[in-house]
């Protein structure tokens, strides 16, 4: 039976996304992995298909859907065979654009949200810095008034997905050092603004088809209408963004682990050792049972969390739990599956190594395991 988050209409979306991913993305996955990037047409094509803005209202080109639709897309993108593609798409459609919809002016929505949903503009989200990741309050990039009502931005950002080729960036800055948590502001910055530089493209152990940038902001001048949301409210605004980021991240990651689980089980039924399929050894049967149990728990927890959110809660604790648990389980499953593949898992031709490397990111990105535990403990009053 379907989880109550989903209806038959969600399943229709699932079928069409799957069809698209398997026929138009998966055939290129190996090539994109090798090249360390995938082409811009993927954004445009997914925009044309209506997959880039499922939760946004139709008046901005979205589909007017809910968290169920977003999760379906994240799960099906895992079938691409290259984790970086799903991540880049998710950054655009579920991480960088929701703050524009939620906090932006009508003019900002028309100028940035609408083309992003169409896949015509590529967007990145600039939060992390060399010295501040999950510790958002430690951000050092400054925005100071230029005297004419505009702003001058200076600082550095790192690990920025889509950052190498983005048309604009949703940027987190500190506009008032004395104001503590009330001294942060978000800006929409076009990447062709003078002083906005991609200082380098980072090389990563996984998620290799996604471009990841280090950015330098050197006296970047932006007019007042580029301020996103309320001046001084950037911290709360970006904390809200992170909740969706974590939920969508775990949905994709757990789906990716299920795919490897399925492939590994097929393999274990075929591969013979000591005269019998390795899957028939009791120890391995129990390994599969353990993996399936934990994966199902992770999946159900993710769905329950999304459902709670749709029902009007703001389930920060549950989101952190889902991300923590799902990340740990996905990593355990990938590692156990690689073990079951033996030498074939260590050889790159099966793609198991790719999934294993890609999965590792969830325990770091969007807030580390340790930060999730801090959030959970705090919400427990500890």
């Amino acid at each position, binding site marked *: *039976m379907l*989880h*109550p988050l989903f*209806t038959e209409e969600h399943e229709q979306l699932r079928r069409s996304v799957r069809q698209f991913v398997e026929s138009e993305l998966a055939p290129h996955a190996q090539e994109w992995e090798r090249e360390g990037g995938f082409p811009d047409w993927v954004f445009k094509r997914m925009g044309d298909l209506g997959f880039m803005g499922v939760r946004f209202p139709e008046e901005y080109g979205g589909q*007017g*859907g*809910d968290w169920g639709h977003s999760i379906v897309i994240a799960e099906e993108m895992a079938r691409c065979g290259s984790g970086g593609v799903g991540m880049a798409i998710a950054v655009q459609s579920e991480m960088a654009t929701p703050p524009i919809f939620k906090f932006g002016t009508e003019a900002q929505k028309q100028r940035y949200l609408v083309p992003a949903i169409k896949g015509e503009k590529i967007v990145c989200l600039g939060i992390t810095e060399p010295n501040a990741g999950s510790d958002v309050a430690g951000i050092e990039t400054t925005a100071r008034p230029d005297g004419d009502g505009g702003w001058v931005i200076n600082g550095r950002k790192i690990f920025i997905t889509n950052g190498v080729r983005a048309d604009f960036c949703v940027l987190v800055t500190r506009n008032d050092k004395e104001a503590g948590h009330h001294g942060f502001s978000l800006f929409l910055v076009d990447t062709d603004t003078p002083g906005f530089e991609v200082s380098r493209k980072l090389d990563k152990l996984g998620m290799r088809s996604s471009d990841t940038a280090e950015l330098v902001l050197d006296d970047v001048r932006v007019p007042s209408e580029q301020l996103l949301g309320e001046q001084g409210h950037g911290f709360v605004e970006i904390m809200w963004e992170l909740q969706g980021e974590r939920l969508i991240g775990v949905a994709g990651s757990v789906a990716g682990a299920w795919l490897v689980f399925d492939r590994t*089980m097929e393999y*274990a*039924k075929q591969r013979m050792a000591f005269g019998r399929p390795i*899957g*028939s050894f*009791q120890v*391995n*049967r*129990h390994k*599969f*049972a*353990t993996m*399936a*149990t*934990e994966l*199902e*728990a*992770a999946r*159900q*927890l993710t*769905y*329950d969390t999304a*459902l709670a959110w*749709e*029902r*009007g809660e703001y389930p920060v604790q*549950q989101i*952190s*739990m889902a991300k*923590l*648990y799902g990340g740990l389980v996905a990593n355990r499953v990938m590692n156990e599956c690689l073990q079951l593949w033996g030498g074939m898992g260590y050889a790159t031709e099966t793609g198991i190594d790719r999934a294993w490397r890609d999965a590792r990111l969830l325990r770091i990105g969007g807030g580390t395991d*340790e930060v*999730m*535990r*801090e959030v*959970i*403990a705090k919400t*427990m009053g*500890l």
Partner: protein
Amino acid sequence: MTPSAARFAAIPQAGLFTADHAELRDVIRQWVRRALRPHAEEWERAGDFPYREVFREAGLVGIFGAKYEPRYGGTGPDLVADALITEELVGCGAGGVAAALGAHKDLGPYYVSRFGTEQQRQRYLIPAVAGERICALAVTEPGAGSDVAGIRTRAERIGGGGWRLSGTKTFITNGSIADFVVVAAKTEPEAGAHGISLFVVEAGTAGFSAQRLDMVGWRTSHTGELVFEGCEVPADALLGEEHQGFGHIMANFQWERIVMALAAVAAARATLDLAISYGRERKAFGRPVVKFQVWRHRLADLATEIEAARALTYHALRKIVAGEDAVREVSMAKWLATELDWKVADEALQMHGGYGYMMEYPVQRAWRDARLGPIGGGSTEIMKDIIGRSFGL
């Protein structure tokens, strides 16, 4: 409100619990807090509880009737209500009392309801629902637990259509206080799983005796060893179809295991709360133990795992309620939740330090009681075998 928001608002909590269920939960919780929990320490020390009174009161409150129609004294059928009753019974604070009431609620009488004749339901189910007669289910034997096909208790036909039972059953919850027992026996020993039948045996029947066992936990529970020595029962003692007992047992295992998962999640949560409230009071190096980062993270991990086990358990429950095959999901929930309850109890004991090792603190009881979860109702190893086989492995 958009159509999508309206749809979400109409979904019961976790896809299961309605506002009526929330009210029922409150009623059960109040009763457990008032009638059971204040006595937990005393009953545990005595290794016993006034079971006749407690069963009758539980019957009046409606603990045993959620699965059955009003004509049997029930308030159902409502499996979701029954599930939340299981969760709330955990609050009594003594695993053995919850187990005694739970075993009665979910085992023998449920068999009578599902597989019995109308006459058997009148005779056994109605007084069981009322809490007037206590029931036990006797499947496990000294040499056969989860391996049900391996039981050796025999039932041979005698003149007049009756049966003669011989054999020994063990680890039978309520076994030594039961007024009637649902017993599994081989009616055709050569046929393996296809030669098992179920019988209802009344306490006091000649040739049937029971003896209480001493256990490391669940110390208020009257768990017994039952001996059948040429115990003769009439023809109408046969419950369900002859030789079909194995299928009946397997069918009921799903409910037996889901309630174990539900109880384990509730118990794990209660034990975690116990640890946290202790750790808030207890200071070391000048601050409460729960404020040390290592403990904050360990507690966060445990709370997370409890939430994951709850999500999985409710998923399995939704499938059962919808009438779908849930063997795989129930087996998953059963082992994950019971192993977790045990892990939480061990961590809670650790947080208590030396006091955790002392009998005056309730955490030791949670620790002893939780240890049964991964054993009873089919061990973790059996659950994993079932799950693995469900994938064709």
